[in-house]
């Protein structure tokens, strides 16, 4: 009797366990589907996937959190610049083309490319007639002048405005402009030598520059120069109700839950040669749980993430499943990932202590966490391969066997800086996603030579603005190291290095020159870069700047980022905008 009961019980337990196990493991298999037509791995890197003229439908997109700002003059996140194309247009724009073809600005709101005269110091450009905002008002040349003028206000911070500031106004020796912006000085305007630097005549704008700037077309393609109607401008709160000049407008915006864009009825395709929207609505939802987003994309409930790729478990799923791999892309981006070594925090003020970290770091381990060879290309120098004049093979601090670090050289540098047994240093990081593991890997690598790390966690919302973006806070909290990424604001050595390496770019908040680098050699090269019009001279200067930055041992690069994206198979007209960071160009995407 007992034996039979026992056996039956055993069998039922076995069956139950089997069912549960099958359910748990089967969940991973359920995402397999038939191979999507017209899609291949890396299809969106080199071409446009599923080109189609069909319009209609709603894109369902995800991001970890809100953009730093929707105000076109106040955003600095790479993916937010791509999203700006949804609802803003500028005089020039990057074409909707993959690869290098999408990296040279073409006319958008302008009738043609600008004309340069007077040794490159006078720029003339004409606005197209009859382009309209989402309010129905006509876009005027005065609106573009106003958009640039408001960047001089202290309410409009956080965007790449510094390129224009001293180009169009008289700055003092500390780089501070005289013009204070239209809110404080409504009857004033930016002036050079007492004369207005932005002159509007009908639909024509004339810019008078303080010095020639060979990348000025790239500046005109930035959302910083997108038109803003003065009567709708509310200064620091404009981000909550941006007036659209592009094919979509804001229907709703909530800083914690997301954005919904719908078509701007006053935009017409006839007047827009750059973008070809297909969807009628775009839903962007925020979810701080990156794993949940990855799973939603795998099960085709979310089309793609706008702010970066999927994490390693999803990558593994894609590599093992051909139909998912076919709807994935793995571009090399414009971003270099590196450790900022704060030279103002002891004992990092001694260059040999800094170099000890350069040799002790384990670049291979850090890359493994970011996805291995799918996550990045190991780097020995800062300047990204997408920058003209770069040399990706330059490595002044050899990485050791397997790029896991050169501990002998590290110990020699420790001895040279008087800390043969190592020292203590704080690491600033945000513990979400991979941030915590990157910290642990860094900690483990440096511990090999006795450099012990303390954990200083920040939050994503303020990390770049006031945590490591404030030189005073770095000193106060003794933040010694921070793992960060950086991409050129536009494809040139000046666009790559100006904000992070020029002494005159150090800001009290929102600072990108985290280490407060102020090397006269570098300052001089950068200050004279844009006045040089010869491409070959610029390439030589780019190399010199890069070598000097590396010699100063403040920025320790470990990889050029690659992103692994997975997207759904129902998308059409999908490609990656390479010049702006290899994100999907959402404004053009459609659904079947």
């Amino acid at each position, binding site marked *: 009797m007992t034996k039979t009961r026992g056996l039956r019980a055993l069998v039922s337990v076995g069956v139950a366990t089997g069912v549960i196990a099958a359910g748990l493991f089967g969940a*991973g298999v359920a995402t397999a589907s038939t191979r999507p037509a017209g899609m291949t791995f890396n299809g969106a890197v080199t071409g446009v996937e599923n080109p189609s003229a069909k319009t209609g439908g709603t894109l369902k997109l995800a991001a970890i959190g809100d953009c730093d700002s929707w105000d076109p003059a106040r955003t600095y996140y790479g993916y937010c610049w791509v999203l700006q194309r949804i609802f803003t247009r500028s005089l020039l724009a990057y074409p909707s083309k993959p690869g290098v073809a999408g990296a040279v600005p073409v006319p958008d709101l302008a009738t043609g490319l600008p004309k340069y005269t007077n040794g490159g110091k006078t720029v003339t450009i004409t606005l197209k007639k009859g382009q309209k905002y989402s309010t129905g008002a006509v876009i005027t040349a005065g609106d573009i002048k106003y958009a640039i003028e408001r960047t001089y206000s202290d309410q409009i911070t956080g965007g790449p405005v510094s390129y224009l500031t001293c180009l169009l106004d008289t700055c003092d020796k500390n780089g501070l402009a005289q013009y204070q912006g239209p809110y404080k000085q409504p009857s004033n305007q930016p002036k050079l030598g007492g004369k207005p630097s932005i002159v509007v005549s009908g639909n024509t704008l004339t810019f008078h520059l303080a010095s020639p700037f060979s990348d000025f077309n790239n500046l005109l393609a930035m959302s910083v120069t997108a038109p803003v109607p003065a009567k709708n401008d509310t200064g620091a709160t404009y981000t909550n109700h941006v007036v659209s000049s592009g094919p979509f407008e804001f229907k709703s915006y909530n800083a914690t839950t997301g954005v919904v864009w719908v078509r701007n009825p006053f935009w017409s395709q006839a007047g827009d040669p750059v973008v070809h929207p297909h969807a009628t609505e775009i839903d962007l939802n925020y979810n701080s749980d990156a794993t949940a987003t990855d799973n939603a994309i795998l099960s085709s409930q979310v089309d793609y993430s706008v702010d970066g790729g999927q994490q390693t478990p999803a*990558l593994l799923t894609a590599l093992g499943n051909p139909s998912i791999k076919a709807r994935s892309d793995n571009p090399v981006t414009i971003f270099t990932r590196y450790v900022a070594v704060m030279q103002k925090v002891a004992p990092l003020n001694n260059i040999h202590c800094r170099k000890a970290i350069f040799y002790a770091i384990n670049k291979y*381990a850090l890359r*493994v*966490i970011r996805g291995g060879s799918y996550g990045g290309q190991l780097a020995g120098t800062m300047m990204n391969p997408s920058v003209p004049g770069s040399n990706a093979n330059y490595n002044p601090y050899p990485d050791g066997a*397997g790029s896991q670090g050169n501990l002998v050289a590290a110990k020699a540098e420790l001895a040279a800086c008087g800390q043969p047994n190592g020292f203590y240093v704080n690491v600033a990081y945000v513990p979400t996603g991979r941030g915590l593991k990157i910290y642990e890997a860094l900690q483990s690598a440096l511990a090999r030579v006795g450099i012990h790390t303390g954990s200083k966690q920040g939050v994503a919302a303020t990390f770049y603005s006031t945590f490591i973006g404030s030189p005073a806070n770095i000193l106060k909290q003794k933040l010694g190291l921070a793992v960060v990424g950086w991409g050129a604001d536009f494809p040139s050595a000046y666009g790559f290095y100006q904000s992070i390496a020029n002494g005159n770019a150090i800001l009290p908040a929102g600072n990108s020159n985290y280490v407060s680098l102020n090397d006269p050699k570098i300052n001089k090269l950068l200050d004279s870069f844009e006045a040089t019009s010869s491409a070959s001279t610029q390439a030589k200067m780019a190399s010199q700047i890069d070598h000097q930055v590396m010699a100063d041992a403040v920025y320790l690069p470990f990889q050029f980022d690659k992103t692994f994206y997975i997207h759904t198979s129902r998308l059409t007209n999908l490609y990656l905008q390479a010049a702006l960071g290899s994100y999907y160009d959402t404004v053009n995407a459609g659904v079947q």
Partner: protein
Amino acid sequence: MMKSAAATAQAVADAPVKGRSLWAIAWGRLRRDKVAMASLIFIILLTLAAIFAPLITKWMGVDPTSQDLNVLGDIGFPKGPWGGVSWKHILGVEPQLGRDIFARLLYGARISLGISLSATVISVVLGVLFGITAGFFGGWIDAVISRFLDVMLAFPVLLFAIAVLVIISNIPHAPNYFRIVLLILIIGVFSFAYPARIIRGQTISLREREFVEASTSLGAGTSRILFSELLPNLAAPILVYATLIIPVNIIFEATLSFLGVGVQPPTPSWGGMLADASTVFQADPFYLVVPAVALFVTVLAFNLLGDGVRDAFDPKSTR
């Protein structure tokens, strides 16, 4: 022949009968309980392993922080089956970081056992203090303490613990040991109400006994009665409930670590390992199985031991 048998019988009749104390009787019963003994042996071995974790891991050539990247594939998952199990890494390695799981399990045991045992000591000390006071004095003292215990029992402990620990995270210079002390205090303070009630009940039933009356009539003061008469008789229930509170506290600490508010990485903890492993479960299931089994077996061992101890002191108590 007859002489030795008679002599033996006489020897047996003459030998005095030795009385055995409660502890000796209980220990005798416990020794015969195979399940409880097995649990006790496991707990002793685990505690020794936790205490000698640095020596054991050094002898095996592993440690909880070094990364062994050669065992990981290109995108960070262990190359072999079973999560990278090998002679060197007997429980495999962590994905992406390549740290030895066995070493992290042992060091994590220090955290789990250390924090929960310390918290249990606090819990028992507070429980005895409040329980004896409420039970012995009665009246308004009992009323006040009992209501206080009711509040403690009704408190949303997990929410409170999370809130306090998140606030601690935001203090710029708080070191890890400060966090550990706070964890011990929170867990200890929020679990003393249960033993306090038990002790109070036991005290109430004991204070009416004759030996207390005898002590009072001999002129013994309150504190002498409490500490010399009542406390020794409460030792049995105190021991039983202490053993049963420990697994509750282990789970509590593991929950806090799982939620990310316990000890901070890279300090290994079983809850932290569970949290990390659950994100890569489909790619490397063994990484989840190891801390889950460790936690399950440890909690089970303490529970079985607690049951065994309770049975040893009072075999008539019903389950």
